[in-house]
């Protein structure tokens, strides 16, 4: 019997719970159930046999937690436990059922919530998959983190050719613990090419029904439903519904359509499976036609391209001096703040481009994608001309992204489309090829068609190809605008593809560019533009999209439009701005006033003079108040942020000329290896930034070698380290030892050329001294004092 043979049945019956049966067997609790494969093989085999006798056609080998992380310290490895488990199941199956390698979550949270990286998770899964080579299929179950599940599915696809099934565990609110939505799960998993997807555990069949109903409306692959026997009692952990009720509920779930695989999770026994099989007798499977339009998603949020959606274009260094500087300085927070402001302004999707000749684009793209997904929920559009950059970013992306872009040139098609297929993304198709951009709408339409045809050959749905008919500068070629719009209209109506367009190029070289951009955007929307790529912070452009949605009847009752017009501005402060001096503005955290005053002062005073006679003294006064417990930490930070606004005004002014930016010295900050509590370090960063120091923030959970390498490469002599836990003080000590013993960081007499300051809740001055730190900083303010001492300013 093969998986394909099995698919010929109306329904495929899975087994019920392993854990419940083990509990019933009376074995003492506490031992890892997977080890029973080795110690009590006959018991495991018997449980499988009971399920097969009840009618199960697929049994899950007892391998749920048999991964390297959970087995650590057990004296056994996945490569011992898993083959034994598969053997036990195989013996019981004896040709009557298929054996599935059952893979559960690794058991620790992935970045950004936890510390496990994508690659670590992948390697644990790979070990399980290789060890389970004798199974017939691979089933991932009980996942709550979509990205962890993606690592697993990729490990399965890249290390075996078995069918892959994947189920997640949802709560009643339709989300997993990690926040994944039903739509995100379906879009992502079917994109990765699983054979079936669905739900298991956490809830009983009645509670799971609305979730299955949602899946049944959107999934393009068959569904798996494996509920618990009702809800558990919190203390006894027993379940509350009986086999016949369970079976009746599943019968009604099967009636939703698309449900092909059914079984039971916690609390179910062979009796439940028997009842289930009986209840589905006479019913036949049907696959629903997926409803709705093409959609993209992050791990938490799906965006259906059923109406114009704004793609924010600001994460891109082209023509932006500050952004380039941020990339060179590894200032991820700057990029994140660009993302947050675009989302607040109304972006539905964010384009991400970090291509700059002087940086490692691949490494930076992966870092930025991970960082963005840790703070914003919108889907991302991965923008690079390099296939290896796209590949790396698509791998770690949580959800279904857009790839920007492919074009009609064969070299591009054959490099980019396989990636789009493998990772289940959507793709932007640019209507140009080796001969450039065709002048006519006809020519561009032909390329669009070629791109769509090739995409289909690679197994990509035409719905997932978004065609960009390219905006040309109207001041250079006045008739080109009409050609673009005609091509757009034809692509939309004849190819049935969604369309996108970068808008602002249109007005290059003309006065009053905003006006031209705005009208062009409106014309394009009317021709069927779905995805305008714009600066969402430009209220006129975002407003045009919102107004269009009202006028074309998309925004019913104009409710979104009205909401966007009435969003309350942050409460304005009562202090009369006309009487405020710059230092008062800083002390009171009045950003708007501080900005205006700085701009005014720059007309009469030298930049450094403003910094030294106004900003720094004001910050010092606030710092002193904080030390005397006259103000709270958030107030100190607000003042510091206000000073930062002033510094930015000054920096922007200086970067117009050739003078170097204001910096009083470079400092490395890092939260040590193993520690992921980094809020303290981030507070220190904000303050140091605002006092005019340049901070190279290496983040959290940082390898000692990276800190040393950065200090050597960038010639940095002051290093700040934080650790919050007693368990991670050891890695602080190791880091300092490595700094001290690195020859490049030693003076000729062997003494250290680096100064190390340390901080963190569990640290004491004595301990800091013992592990070789130069300064112990009690709080963020003291780290600024230390920097002042070190740099002498």
């Amino acid at each position: 019997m093969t998986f394909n043979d099995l698919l010929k049945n109306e329904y495929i019956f899975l087994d019920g719970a392993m854990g419940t049966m083990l509990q019933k067997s009376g074995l003492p609790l506490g031992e890892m159930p997977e080890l029973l494969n080795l110690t009590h093989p006959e018991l495991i085999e018997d449980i499988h046999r009971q399920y097969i006798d009840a009618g199960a056609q697929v049994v899950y080998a007892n391998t749920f937690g048999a991964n390297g992380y959970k087995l650590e310290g057990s004296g056994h490895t996945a490569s011992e436990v898993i083959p034994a488990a598969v053997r036990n199941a195989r013996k019981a199956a004896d040709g009557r059922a298929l054996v599935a390698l059952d893979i559960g979550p690794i058991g620790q949270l992935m970045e950004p919530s936890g510390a496990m990286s994508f690659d670590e998770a992948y390697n644990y899964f790979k070990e399980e998959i290789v060890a389970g080579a004798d199974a017939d299929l691979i089933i991932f179950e009980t996942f709550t983190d979509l990205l962890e599940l993606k690592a697993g599915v990729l490990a399965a696809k890249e290390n075996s050719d078995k069918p892959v099934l994947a189920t997640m565990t949802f709560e009643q609110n339709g989300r997993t613990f990690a926040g994944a939505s039903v739509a995100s799960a379906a879009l992502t998993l079917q994109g990765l090419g699983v054979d079936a997807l669905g739900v298991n555990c956490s809830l009983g069949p009645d509670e799971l029904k609305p979730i299955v109903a949602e899946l049944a409306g959107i999934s393009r692959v068959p569904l798996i439903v494996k509920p618990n026997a009702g809800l558990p009692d919190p203390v006894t952990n027993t379940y509350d519904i009986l086999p016949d009720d369970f079976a009746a509920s599943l019968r009604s779930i099967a009636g939703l359509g698309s449900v092909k695989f059914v079984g039971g999770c916690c609390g179910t026994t062979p009796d439940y499976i028997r009842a289930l099989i009986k209840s589905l007798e006479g019913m036949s499977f049907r696959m629903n036609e997926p409803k709705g339009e093409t959609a993209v998603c992050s791990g938490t949020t799906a965006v259906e391209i059923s109406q114009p959606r704004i793609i924010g274009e600001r994460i891109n260094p082209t023509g932006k001096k500050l952004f380039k500087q941020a990339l060179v300085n590894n200032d991820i927070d700057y990029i994140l703040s660009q993302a947050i402001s675009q989302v607040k302004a109304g972006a539905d999707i964010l384009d991400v481009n970090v291509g700059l000749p002087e940086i490692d684009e691949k490494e930076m793209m992966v870092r930025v994608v991970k960082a963005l997904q840790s703070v914003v929920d919108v889907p991302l559009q991965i923008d690079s001309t390099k296939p290896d950059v796209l590949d790396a970013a698509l791998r770690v992306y949580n959800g279904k992204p857009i790839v920007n872009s492919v074009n009609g040139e064969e070299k591009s098609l054959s490099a980019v489309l396989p990636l789009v297929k493998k990772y289940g993304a959507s793709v932007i198709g640019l209507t140009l090829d080796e001969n450039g951009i065709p002048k006519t709408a006809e020519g561009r339409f032909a390329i669009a068609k070629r791109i769509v045809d090739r995409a289909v050959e690679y197994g990509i749905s035409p719905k997932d190809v978004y065609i960009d008919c390219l905006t040309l500068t109207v001041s250079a070629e006045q008739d080109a605008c009409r050609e673009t719009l005609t091509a757009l209209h034809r692509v939309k109506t004849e190819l049935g593809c969604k369309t996108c367009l970068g808008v602002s190029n249109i007005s290059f070289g003309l006065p009053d560019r905003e006006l031209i951009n705005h009208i062009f955007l409106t014309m394009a929307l009317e021709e069927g533009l779905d995805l305008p790529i714009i600066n969402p912070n430009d209220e006129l452009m975002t407003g045009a999209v919102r107004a269009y949605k009202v006028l074309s009847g998309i925004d019913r009752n104009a409710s979104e439009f009205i909401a966007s017009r009435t969003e309350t501005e942050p409460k304005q402060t009562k202090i009369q701005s006309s009487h405020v001096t710059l230092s008062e503005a800083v002390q009171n955290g009045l950003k708007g006033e501080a900005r205006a005053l700085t701009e005014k002062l720059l007309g009469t005073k030298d930049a450094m003079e403003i910094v030294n006679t106004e900003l720094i003294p004001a910050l010092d006064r606030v710092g002193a108040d904080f030390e005397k417990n006259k103000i709270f930490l958030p107030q100190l930070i607000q003042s510091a942020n206000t000073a930062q606004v002033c510094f930015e005004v000054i920096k922007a002014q200086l970067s117009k000329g050739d003078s170097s930016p204001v910096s009083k010295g470079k400092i490395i900050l890092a939260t040590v290896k193993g520690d992921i509590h980094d809020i303290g370090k981030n507070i220190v960063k904000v303050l140091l930034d605002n006092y005019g120091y340049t901070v190279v923030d290496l983040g959290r959970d940082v390898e000692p070698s990276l800190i040393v390498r950065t200090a050597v490469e960038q010639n940095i002599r002051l290093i700040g380290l934080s650790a919050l836990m007693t368990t991670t003080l050891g890695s602080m000590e190791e880091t300092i030892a490595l700094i001290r013993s690195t020859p490049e960081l030693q003076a000729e007499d062997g003494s250290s050329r680096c100064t190390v300051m340390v901080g963190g809740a569990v640290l004491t001055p004595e301990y800091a001294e013992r592990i070789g730190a130069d300064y112990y900083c009690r709080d963020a303010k003291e780290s600024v004092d230390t920097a002042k001492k070190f740099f002498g300013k």
Partner: protein
Amino acid sequence: MKIPEHISRAETLRCLGNSSVAMNDEMQSLLDSCEEKLLRSLRPKWLYKRLNPSECGLLEGESIREHLSGCGDAVLMCVTLGTETDRLIRSAQVEDMASAVVLDAMASVATEQLCDELEAEIAAKFPEKSLTWRFSPGYGDYPISLQKTFLSLLDAPRRIGLCTNDSSILTPMKSVTAIIGLSDAPVERKRRGCAGCNLNKTCKFRKAGTRCDF
């Protein structure tokens, strides 16, 4: 069990290190807006389970033995605010560090409030027993590495998505595990006190000449 509808303002200010400061309008509105955001982010989950600590390998070191002296069984508990709160604090750190500091403090307060609620529920479940206060891995000489054991006994990674990492840091971050002794004889609910506290040299309250009153 009741999910907190308010975050104690007094506790938040104490967490921020200073309750003697005169409040101004800006600080007030910062606190208000943070409370609203925080409450919206909460996806609290909890578990508890009665067991015999000596049979489950939970009696390591002197502190826990002393804490549980006179108790036969104990209740193991855990609570978490969920990943959404972590995400909120993370994104606030990029957008506005002042809010992040307030949110972080409020989230810690919310975690304690949730623990108090859960403790009350446990007390009601075992009316014939007297309860010790909540004792957590990391207190006194009780090894913090027991987090993994606590979580696996509660099946917390699977049931509520609460995990730990190699450094015994709980994830989601705003989470607590604890053990409460069940005694037939009345238990003196003495304060934990500064002597047994791991922060007794560095604590901001002691530096300011006060105590956290835990």
